């Protein structure tokens, strides 16, 4: 009886493990296949011209440099607004905020910001920045919109990085006559910096890939020249891919995959950078 019972359980376990392994394969293999497919299909389009030249023939030829530069500007703009504010907010939550209802409300607000659909951010950006504040369809409006969207990511990861720093450091610093801000500035923040940087990289990576928030706030499809000021509209990589794959007739497949490949390389690159920063920080840690 015992042997039968055991055998039955072993069989269940074997089946169960196989099922889960299968499910994992079914998830992982398409990812790998997709990446390879994009690389294979898109590589022929990649040339120095492609990433440095302007588009011609209604985007069907030439390069995509304005989209690349546009995404760069938008990412920079997002960073300028969201990084200082996000880090400061995280410092407040980690180092200053008492455990009371007001703090819970802040945390709830952050969770909510994180969950708002990207297209609703686009609506908000349109209503507030483009129309009400009269910035027009501009890099400024789009960056501000993306910043608010990126804020919760930066706040969460920064707070986590700050909390990982041992409390004993703070106690020692205070006992040596340090103020709370001195303690943060000289000890806590520097030690949390790698974690913060990782979070910023991942947050900005997400912002750079978003289309819906910039659809009505700053993105344009065809601009004759690069943007001159923050009040100009701009091309952007994700938006560019969207338009050329849905709205331009007879767009060469090669160009579409090439654009997708550029985006893919960007994402992989940022992920790798974040992993690298995380790994080096772990190795160099002094606690």
């Amino acid at each position, binding site marked *: 009886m015992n042997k039968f019972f055991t055998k039955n359980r072993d069989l269940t376990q074997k089946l169960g493990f196989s099922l889960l392994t299968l499910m994992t394969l079914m998830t992982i293999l398409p990812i790998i296949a997709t990446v390879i497919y994009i690389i294979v299909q898109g590589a022929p389009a990649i040339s120095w011209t492609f990433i440095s030249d302007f588009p011609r023939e209604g985007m069907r030829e030439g390069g995509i440099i304005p989209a690349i530069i546009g995404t760069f500007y938008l990412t920079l703009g997002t960073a300028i607004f969201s990084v200082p504010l996000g880090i400061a907010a995280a410092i407040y939550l980690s180092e200053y905020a008492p455990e009371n209802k007001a703090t819970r409300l802040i945390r709830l607000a952050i969770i909510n910001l994180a969950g708002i659909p990207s297209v609703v951010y686009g609506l908000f950006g349109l209503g507030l920045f483009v129309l009400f504040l009269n910035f027009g369809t501009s890099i400024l409006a789009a960056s501000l919109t993306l910043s608010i969207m990126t804020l919760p990511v930066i706040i969460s990861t920064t707070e986590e990085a700050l909390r990982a720093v041992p409390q004993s450091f703070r106690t020692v610093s205070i*006992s040596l006559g340090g103020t709370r801000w001195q303690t943060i500035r000289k000890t806590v923040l520097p030690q949390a910096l790698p974690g913060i940087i990782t979070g910023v990289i991942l947050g900005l990576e997400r912002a750079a890939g978003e289309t819906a928030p910039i659809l009505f706030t700053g993105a344009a499809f065809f601009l004759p020249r690069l943007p001159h000021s923050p009040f100009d509209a701009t091309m952007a990589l994700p938006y560019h891919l969207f338009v050329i794959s849905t709205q331009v007739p007879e767009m060469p497949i090669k160009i579409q995959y090439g654009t997708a490949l550029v985006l893919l390389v960007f994402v992989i690159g940022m992920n790798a950078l974040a992993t690298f920063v995380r790994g080096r920080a772990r190795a160099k840690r002094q*606690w």
Partner: protein
Amino acid sequence: MKNKIVIENLTLQYSDGTESLNGINLDIPANATTVLFGPAGGGKSSILRCLNRLNDLADVEKVTGKILLDGENILDLKTDVIALRRKVGMVFARPVVLPFSIRGNLTYGLELAGEKRKSRYAEAVERSLKLAALWDEVHDRLDDPAIALSGGQQQRLCLARSIALEPEVLLLDEPTSGLDPISTSKVEDALIELKKQYTVILVPHSVQQAARTSDYAAFFLEGKLIEYAPGTEIFTNPKKQRTEDYVMGRFG
């Protein structure tokens, strides 16, 4: 002997209702080692943390009474706590080195104080390491990370770190509790030198350490001061029964 610190009727209550200190009256003489001993929960650490106002960070519900340092009440709301903490240094039970070099640990307090003169840094580093009996072991590798030191060395570094600020009082909360006997005796020897310049208040981790190091000793039980006497008397001839019970190891 003049009193460096006078504690008058100190009562402390934490916000979870526990009463930590109850009407403490205690004199701490200058240039001597005063030992606060007793079983856990007696309030000894709470007193230390009142002396450098580190209790401000804890969940303290109520504090009444006075603590006079050189005649000034440091529990007063107008007290400059930052300056107080430089005057009253603290060494914790577990050695907590900051994530910097040895030198960086020592100069940290001076940087906080806004000391700009580089010459003062070098001088403070050497002086404090020598007083903490650590100079010989680390003087040639001051830029190494402090975390690389052994436990006993780290604790002496923490001691040196407090000394670098030239305090007037040193608070030590079970400073040798994790250390081996050799490191322990090194720390205790350093204290003998230190009390010549400073006032030392020590919470020992054993009655034996209390007996070894104290000029004066105060026995605490459940937040009350039971007995206070010179070290030569209290361990050999305690006056209160509870004190004798504890010293003889009948409880604790």
